[in-house]
């Protein structure tokens, strides 16, 4: 069992203690706890979704627009 913040898990179980899963374990053993990984199942779901709906496919490659930091508050929400 590990202690690792997960609001969804806490919400559904009322507990901050949850069984280890592979991703969490991996994060804990890597420097800074950060790494990039590819969620193949989600990518496959996305590919299927885009093949079903032409408008989703058309918009899929338009980048998310973020306001420049200079006009934003420095605080994170």
């Amino acid at each position, binding site marked *: 069992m590990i202690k690792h913040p997960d609001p969804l898990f806490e919400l559904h179980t009322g507990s901050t203690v949850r069984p280890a899963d592979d991703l969490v374990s991996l994060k804990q053993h890597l420097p800074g706890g950060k790494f990039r990984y590819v969620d193949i199942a989600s990518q496959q779901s996305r590919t299927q979704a885009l093949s079903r*709906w032409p*408008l989703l496919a058309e918009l899929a490659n338009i980048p998310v627009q973020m306001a420049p930091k200079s006009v934003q508050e420095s605080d994170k929400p």
Partner: protein
Amino acid sequence: MKIVGFQGIRGGTGTTSMVSMVADALYTNGQSVLMIDLSPSDMLKLHFNVPYLDQAGWAYASALVEPWHAHAYEIAQGLTLIPYGRKGVEDHYRELARSHDPVSLSWLSQLRQVTPAPDWVLLDLPHTLPVSDDWYPVLDLHLLVTSVDVACHTLLTQYLFQNKTRILANMQDPSRLLSNDLIVEWEMRFQDLLTPMMIQRDESVHEALALKTPVTKAFPGSKASLDAHSLASWLQIRNRRSS
């Protein structure tokens, strides 16, 4: 005190109902909540059994040169509502006619001085209100209420995200393929910009407004009500972690 602004990406995304149900869920969890309706349509009060023709509210107070907090309803101890307020429907048309010169929201900067400070301030922001220094810096969190449909998906593609803005998916219908596909796309596309909580489509929300009661009170076992409680708990957990 945490100040959360709820704003629809367009009209009809269920923003006002969302404010009413989240406020009631937070209140049920023992939190004190102040709601402020910033929308000239002045409909938030209808979710709390305030008569349609009542004039009280911050904009009406402003017209009378009274403080913004002069007109407040204590719905219950620890649950307070400040409507938009107006003399009547004529005032609403006048507001629309002078939309080039909207009522100033600079008074929102005084919210942090309210005593006793509520645990939460929930702002119902009109979707027509552009992001400005009048109100955005006051917020701790800006929830962009977005119904799970292709029109909102297109608007999200055009949206310029600020640093405190997160997408709140509303009216999700797990029985429809497109609705589920949109969520798959939003999770991949927006990642942390998408709140992990979403509210399911539920006719009870409309019926609750007709009953002039938040859905969490009128139909506590409904899907939307349970989702609203999850969202309220998520806000509380997030708050505990940031404080």
